[in-house]
């Protein structure tokens, strides 16, 4: 018994002595920005892009001595949480950042399956949240505290339908999409609706689907080729794009293949090779031929991390800059985190014509930005070249 008491006492004294190490980290007002990113799980590349963009932003802010609010500079801290690409982890990460770390604003989660439940948490705790990449309308619908950094699928579908019609003058289209994944499915349906509105019912001559992780698309592609379609639209992710494009070419498909912003990863061209050259897709920004602030961002990112950032990185950067603008515009920090969060939210909703590297944006009432889509052509060198900008 006595031994035990001594042991506990010694442990107490020891830890108390060393806890003085924390002195430098006393409680001062720090603006904390939460990052909810999929650092592990299905899409670690997305998480990495988010983290890198956030770290670059923090570097800038630290260099400037923090964020200036109401004439006073406050130091900034990032709270980066891994959501493992799971819905429940995104919810726990958000809850932790809001109730424990007292973050001012949250950036993320990126994919809709996490952004929808996590947005519910943020809205309930009245904490502003910007999801840079989530395209599902449910993420922001009816949630005044939740915003997003990208355009929505109901906008992207018609953009593509109009582009194909004007560019090629086609009237018959085919669609190939993944039925088990919410993003391709939603976009395929929006494209179909827009196309049929333009060219009459039945003008989408083939509407074929497959399931996530399928690798053989020959039966669907054969049907599509036989249907007499002039253009193939496939809103898939980079790994599937490479398979679909190559298999279509092998089966004798001659027409153009058009894609959506999910093509925007640097991996698409690497995996797909020359088969993808000359194809078009719509996205948030074009890396090749970028100018001004966009080019500056790309060059810095490339120099630091060794590759050209894809759209996730660029959108996260814009989301962080939006957050910064909102915090700066919040008037004065009261130190009461709840009041400050609401002030930041109000400032965010008021932002007009924000000059982001992915285009100008103004938020609608729902917290969705009004911004332009970019049509990118994959050049003969495999670079993503700016082709056209389409605004709402």
């Amino acid at each position, binding site marked *: 018994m006595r031994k035990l008491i001594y042991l506990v006492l010694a442990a107490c004294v020891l830890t108390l002595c060393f806890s003085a190490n924390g002195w430098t980290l006393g409680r001062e007002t720090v603006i904390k920005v939460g990052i909810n990113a999929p650092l592990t799980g299905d899409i670690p590349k997305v998480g990495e892009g988010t983290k890198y963009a956030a770290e670059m932003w923090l570097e800038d802010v630290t260099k400037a001595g923090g964020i200036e609010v109401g004439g006073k500079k406050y130091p900034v801290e990032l709270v980066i949480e891994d959501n493992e690409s799971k819905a*429940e982890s995104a919810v726990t990460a958000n809850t932790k950042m809001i109730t424990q770390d007292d973050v001012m604003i949250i950036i993320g989660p990126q994919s809709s399956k996490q952004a929808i439940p996590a947005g519910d948490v943020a809205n309930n705790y009245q904490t502003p949240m910007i999801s840079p990449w989530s395209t599902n309308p449910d993420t922001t619908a009816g949630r005044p505290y939740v915003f997003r950094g990208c355009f929505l699928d109901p906008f992207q579908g018609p953009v593509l339908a109009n582009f194909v019609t004007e560019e090629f003058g086609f009237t018959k289209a085919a669609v190939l999409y993944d039925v088990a994944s919410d993003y391709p499915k939603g976009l395929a349906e929006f494209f179909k609706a827009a196309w049929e509105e333009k060219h009459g019912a039945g003008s989408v001559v083939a509407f074929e689907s497959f399931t996530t992780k399928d690798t053989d698309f020959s039966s669907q592609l054969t049907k599509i080729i036989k249907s007499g379609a002039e253009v193939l639209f496939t809103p898939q992710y980079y790994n599937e794009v490479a398979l679909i494009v190559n298999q279509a070419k092998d089966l004798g498909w001659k027409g153009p293949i058009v894609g959506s912003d999910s093509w925007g990863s640097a991996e698409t061209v690497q995996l797909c090779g020359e088969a993808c050259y000359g194809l078009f897709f719509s996205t948030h920004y074009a890396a090749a031929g970028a100018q001004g602030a966009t080019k500056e961002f790309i060059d810095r990112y490339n120099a630091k991390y060794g590759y050209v950032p894809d759209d996730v990185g660029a959108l996260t950067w814009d989301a962080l800059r939006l957050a910064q603008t909102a915090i700066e515009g919040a008037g004065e920090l009261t130190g009461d985190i709840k009041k400050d969060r609401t002030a930041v939210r109000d400032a965010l909703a008021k932002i007009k014509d924000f000059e982001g590297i992915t285009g100008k944006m103004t938020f609608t009432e729902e917290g969705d930005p009004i911004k332009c889509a970019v049509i990118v052509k994959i050049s003969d060198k495999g670079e993503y070249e700016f082709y056209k900008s389409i605004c709402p």
Partner: protein
Amino acid sequence: MEKLKKLFSPFSVVPLAGWLLGGFSAVLMEYYLGDLISYYLYLPKIPVLFGTLIMLKKPLLIPSALAYDLIVYIVPIFLVARLTAPLTNGLAALLERMPLWLATLIHLAAFYGVLSTWAGISDYRVLVVKLTMISVILTLSLNVINGYQGEFSCSHPGFMALGAYASSILTLLLFANDKMFGAPLLNPALGPYLFPLVLVFGGAVAALGSLIVAIPSFRTRGDYLAIISLAFLFIVKSAIENLEIFGGPRGMSSQPNYATLPVVFSWMALCIWVVHNFTTSVLGKALNAVRDNEPAANSMTVNTRKTKMTAFMFGAFWAGVAGGLFAHVLRYVNPGTFGLNKLAEILAMVYFGGLNSIYGSIVGALSISVLSEALRPLELFKWIIIPLILILVMIYRPHGLISFTELNVKGLIRPRNKARQEGGE
């Protein structure tokens, strides 16, 4: 090991009631003084999960977090538990004379008091506790099939998905005004009271679904069941993905917030009690006989087919209930959640904790959930550490940490003074 035992020998006289009292004093202390103590230890806030998160994020604060744990948890728990031992032993003796159910209920209520005070400090704790308790239900239900029945079933996330969707549809349809089903059919004020029925419905749907696996597959054994049940998991997942009325791959959101801490806690307690009774009943014994030797059990007049079927449906029922609670905690379900990752998670909890044991299931669910939450700041390394621990457990304790033990409530809550020691353990 011997030394460690000697060190803790003064505490062998503390009954469960004493530990609960110690825990209660610790959480009370945290509730009133936690902020002050953490302030003087230069901690930014009361550390949530015993300081693990802050230790991994800012190594400089490790001593502070450890000191906090010592001052707030370890010292008061042990001190109060030991000092009040004579008192609590008297209390335990008093409780022992009561009917067992009453004594258990009193202990449970006390435990809930400790837990809710501890969780009340931050909503993050509440969420972690809720998800952990749901894992306990899931692990127990899978233990019925994979442990007590001795089969290897892989369809548990599928049952969970059935329960989650069935109960979500019901609550959205009856009590919530949402986009999918329009205005509520019943008065939303009734919702919390009818929520148990909704969960039972979810469980029943899962149990019915389990028949699809059970009927064809119980003609086979072993690996075949694993494959059939795995196929069932994929069938459920892609069926929901293709059902546009239930949101398809986009899932369903905005379920009402019915799964509060007391609700989840009572369902967990109920689940433990029912599973315990099930496994110690005649049917449970028959189940063990079937596991050990099916032809022998058959010759001893055990209806093996009925036994297996009942156990399988029973396990699926609780998985469905857990799914219903899960959907109402997250307030969002999508089919992608109930995939192979979930399966791996539940299997890990069952085999880590121990087969054929209720303690084991609780320990397994608790340790895997809390570990994966506490090690989150390590990012990728978390996925190295947790599997490594699993591998080590499998090597040194092939049946899991605590396997093949029965829940003994009477033994747990009995007083521990010296006079009664001869009968103990």
